[in-house]
Structures are given as C-alpha cells and as structure tokens.
C-alpha cells in the first residue's frame, strides 16, 4: 500500500482588514492508495480550507499558505506553479462540494460540464467526450445519459445533481477524490443513496477518498481512518473502529455523545458541547478547545498539546487521559 498523499504541517492564514484569520494551523496527515480518510469537525474548523489549500483553490489576496508541504506522488503541491497544479486538478485529484444546487453552472448543459475535464485533461474530441460522458452518467446511476446531455442543472433533483458532480469528478479517473460534505445538503434517503454509490465506485475504481463531514454518523460505514479537527488543528486520529470504541479527545467524545443512538438508554440525554465556536482571529495560547473542555487543566491553557501516538496508529493531542481520569504527561 503506497502513500499517495503526505501533508506535513500545513498552515493557511487569511490576511483581512479585521485581522489575521488562522484557519489551518499545522495539519499533517497521510493518505494511502485506495484508502478512505474521513475528516470530521464543526463548521469553520479548517477541514475545507485544508483541502482547498492543497489544490491551490484558496483566493490568494486574503489567503496565504504560510507553511508546510504536501507531497502528491513525490511532488510538493504547495510549491507548484499555477499551470502545474491546474493539470492535477480535476484529473488526478478531484473535488466535489457540498451544495449541488449551486455547484453546477446554471447556464451550461450538464453534458458540457462533464465533458470539460475530459477535453481539457485527456484531450478528447467532441465525439469521444460525449460518448464518455454518457458512460460516466451510467456509472453514477443515471441511465439513458444520452438524452440528459443537453439538459440543464435546474431540471434535475438534488440527488441527481450530486451524481452529476460525482461523474464530473471521476471523469479522468483520479487518484484521489476529495468530497467536501457532499451529502449535507441532501435528504436522508438521498444521502444514503449517494453514499452507497460512492462505495460502489470505490470498489470499482479504487481511488483514495477524503470525505469531509461534520456528521460522525456517516463516517462509520464509509471511512477506514478518521481525523478529527478543531480550530485548524488535528486533535485526534485513528482507525474508524478504534475511534468509535475509544474516543480519547473530549471534543470527539462530545461529537459522538451528541449523536442519537439506537441502543442508548432512554433516560440519557444527548451530550451537548458547551460554549461557542472558536474565534479564528486570535492564535490561541494553549489548547484551542480549552474554553469548552470539561476536563481542562491549567496546563491546557498554557501549552498546546502536540499530536502524539497512543497505540495502534491512534493519535491524540490532549493533556488529559480520559480513560484513566488523570493528566497525561507528554512524552
């Protein structure tokens, strides 16, 4: 199993008139071939910005990639020129977004939009790209693709539009598919369909997937490993079963606890995470989660915990040992 993507210490900031927004603060992770990595965290925690930074999609007047490296098949994405990275976008690394209503261009036909990456990256001519577009539509479950090529996005339902997005993203058989909350804007039943579709495609095409969501419930059946982010930091990372069985960061616990469970005792309340989302305009001293943490120590306010390996690939950034109820002294 080779590593397709290795990110080290990615830092992204936004220099605005009202101050510097510290969106991504030293994020590192690895992605292996064919692996599905889930990234979980609340809105604004930096998960999207991380991905957009990798692809050079951050608007660079306010945005600045302040540091780090991102090795894709041996080359550092962050050091690439625009023309180089443009070749990778849409062909080797594709991204799909949250809202299929607004993510497709309303005045272009879906056939046109699917054919664009084919003609741009694979140099197909019109006849070829049309044929391939129909195949792709078939692949994502839209049979009779030929008749849909000249349709416009507004003529489709949300679920179908998301399928079109997926077809577009997989057009050039990318190595990595980045999915930024693709099901959040959809109905529950449609959500399930799309997830099933992605799983089938994964089996068939074997691409690696980064799936971003704030919903821990989805990740369970989908990802191999999960990474939890907060305020631009990675706070916990583990294989998916391990994370669900032994969530070790107070934030992760909070996220899991706020999920309704079938087997929960009926008199147990849903756990709420107290407090407000972090203010990204100030670089925190100490752990960013400290203001909301019920286990907070004085050390937490002074020193930001480093991401440390516990065992079996389970990484954690926290000063508190939640299972043994005592502070964890860093190694």
């Amino acid at each position, binding site marked *: 199993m080779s590593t397709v993507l290795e990110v080290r210490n990615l830092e992204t900031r936004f220099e605005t008139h009202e101050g510097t927004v510290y969106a991504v603060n030293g994020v590192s992770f690895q992605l292996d071939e064919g692996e599905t990595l889930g990234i979980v965290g609340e809105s604004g925690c930096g998960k999207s910005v991380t991905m957009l930074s990798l*692809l050079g*999609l951050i608007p660079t*007047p306010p945005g600045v990639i302040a540091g780090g490296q991102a090795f894709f098949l041996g080359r550092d994405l962050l050091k690439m020129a*625009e023309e180089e990275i*443009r*070749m*990778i*976008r*849409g*062909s080797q690394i*594709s*991204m799909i*977004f949250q*809202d299929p209503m*607004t*993510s*497709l*261009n*309303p*005045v*272009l036909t879906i056939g046109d939009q699917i054919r*664009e*990456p084919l003609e*741009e*990256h694979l140099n197909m001519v019109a006849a070829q790209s049309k044929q391939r577009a129909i195949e792709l539509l078939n692949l994502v479950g839209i049979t009779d693709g030929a008749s849909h090529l000249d349709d*416009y996005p*507004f*003529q489709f339902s949300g679920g179908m539009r998301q399928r079109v*997005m997926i077809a*577009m993203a997989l057009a050039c058989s990318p190595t990595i598919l980045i999915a930024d909350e693709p099901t959040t804007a959809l109905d529950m039943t449609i959500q399930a369909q799309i997830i099933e579709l992605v799983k089938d495609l994964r089996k068939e095409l074997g691409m690696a997937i980064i799936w971003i969501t704030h919903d821990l419930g989805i990740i369970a059946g989908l990802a191999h490993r999960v990474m939890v982010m907060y305020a631009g930091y990675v706070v916990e990372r583990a294989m998916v079963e391990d994370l669900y069985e032994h969530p070790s960061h107070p934030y992760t616990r909070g996220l899991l606890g706020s999920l309704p469970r079938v087997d929960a005792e009926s008199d147990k309340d849903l756990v709420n995470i107290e407090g407000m989302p972090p203010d990204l305009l100030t670089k925190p001293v100490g752990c960013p989660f400290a203001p909301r943490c019920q286990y907070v120590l004085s050390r937490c306010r002074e020193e930001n915990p480093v991401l440390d390996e516990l065992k079996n690939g389970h990484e954690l950034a926290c000063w508190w040992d939640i299972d043994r109820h005592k502070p964890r002294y860093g190694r």
Partner: protein
Amino acid sequence: MTNYIIRRILGLIPVLFGVSFLVFFLIRLIPGDPVVVMLGDRASAEDVARVREELGFNKPLHLQYFSFMGQLLQGNLGKSIIHHTQVVDELKYRLPATIEMVTWALMLGVLVGVSVGVVSAVKRNSVFDIVGMIGALLGVSMPIFWLALVLIYALAVNNKILPPSGRINVEMFVDRKTGFLFLDTLLMGDIQATLNVIWHLILPVAVLSTVIMPPLARITRACMLDVLNQDYVRTARAKGLAERVVVIKHALKNALLPVITIIGGQLGGLLGGAILTETIFSWPGMGTWAYQAILGRDYPIVQASVLVSATIFVFVNLAVDILYAVLDPRIRYN
C-alpha cells in the same frame, strides 16, 4: 422559446396602446384649449378656428382618437404646424441620423464598459481596477453636454483635429438610400465620403457613449464579483480548467444576465443624452427636431417624436427580454 417570444410580443400591445393614448391625450391634458396652446395666445380667432378644423379638434373625442389611430396606421403623422410639411417626410430624414449615432454609441459603450468591468473584477483592487472605477465615477458625475464642450474645445476649436458639428462635410454629396450615411457612402463606393462620415461621428459617438459606459463598467464589475464568488466558479476551477475559460465561459455568461437587463434600462438615458449631444454638435436628428418642436409648440412633430421614440424603446426592451431568455435557460423553460 417561440411561446415565450409570442407572449412577450402580445404583452407589448397594451403598452403600445397606452403610449398612443398618452401621446394622444398629452396635448389635451394642458389646461385650456389645445389649439390655442399650440398656436400661442396671440393667434387670431380665424387661425384658431382653421387649425381646429384642420386637425379635427372639433369632433367628439373618441372620433378624434379613431381618426388619429387610423392615420397612424396608414403612416400619416400629420403636418407640421410651423413648416407645413409632412411630418413623415422630415422623420425619414431625422430618424436615421439619430439612430446611426445612438447605435454606434451603444456599441462603443457596451464594448468598453463591459470589458473594463470584467477586467476590473478579475483584477480586483489592482491599479486598473481603481483607475477604472474612479474613471467610471467621474463619468457618471459629469454632465455630458459639458464633456462635449470640453472635448470640442480641446479637439475641434483650436486644433481642428475633429469637426465640431455636422454629419458630413457640406460639399460632399450622398445618395441617401437608407439615411444611414455610413451605409449609404459604402453603398455608393465612395470611401472618402465614408471616412468623412466616420470622422464626423467620432466625437458625438464618444460623448454619447459616456452615458452608458461608466454605469455599465460598474455594474459589470459588481456582477462579475458576485459571480466569481459563486460555488460553480469554484467547481470550474477545481476541474482544472484554464482561468480564461473559467472567467469567460463560466463566469461572464452568468454575470451578463443582469448586465443586459440594465442595458435595457439605460436606454432612456441614452436617448436623453442624444438630445443634448445633437444640440451641441448640430446633428440633424430626432433630438433637436423634437426639442425645437416642443418649444415651438409644433404639436404634430412632438407627437410623432414621442410616439416613435417610445415605440423604439419598447421594442428594444423586447429585444433585451428575448436576449435574456436566449442566454438564461431557466427563463426559456418556464
């Protein structure tokens, strides 16, 4: 699509009728006897009676309207009270003069305005953007008759680079088939005359285009900025498309929709500006014709001018509506 066009055309009919009503009633809205208003207070009683008979003001109102509409549909717009010539004849001469100038001004204004707007949006906060927007602000704030005079002073009065008035050198002959001198000279094959026509067109067209150029630049910029921020533009970039494709094919097409709407709305200002421009450049068009007629109370000419310009306006708006539907599939399918 055809359905849509037909519906729109049908929708125009009430508006056109409304315009004809308004034009018909305009003179009668003035307190007092309309014929006296037309001829002035010092007209003799016989003159008043004669004109009243001539113009049919002595008949009951609805009959007047019918005869008005009847004559209209036959292409008879009446006779000038002052010059005693057929209004239609003068119209054939005046209308193309104005349309020629306005069309060129529209094209120039749209071309430059939209381009500046797009580039300003793409290169937001750059020197080009700032200079462009300052220029647009100044353009929107200046009286165009003043701009015309300044340019005339700079280029025509002392330096004679461009002519200060007229459509063509007086001594040149043109076989006026269409009334559009640019076309007529081309049809005649007289290139020198064509160049002369262009030479005369430059200043008035440039001045008139400043009526729409600055607002277009600002609105295009605003629309482009709005569109460039949209999710589907991000998707287009994420697909690895070239930036030029993203800007023109994905962004501009969407941004143009509201811009086109606004062009339609700016048309009124363009026609108004035409009046002033024609006055300053002694351009023999509808603007000066209507203006003199209004002051001279030459009612049939006023009536005809208002009718013609309103009708043109209405049809241009129709064209804009249809263009909008062509560009935006969502409108077509509804």
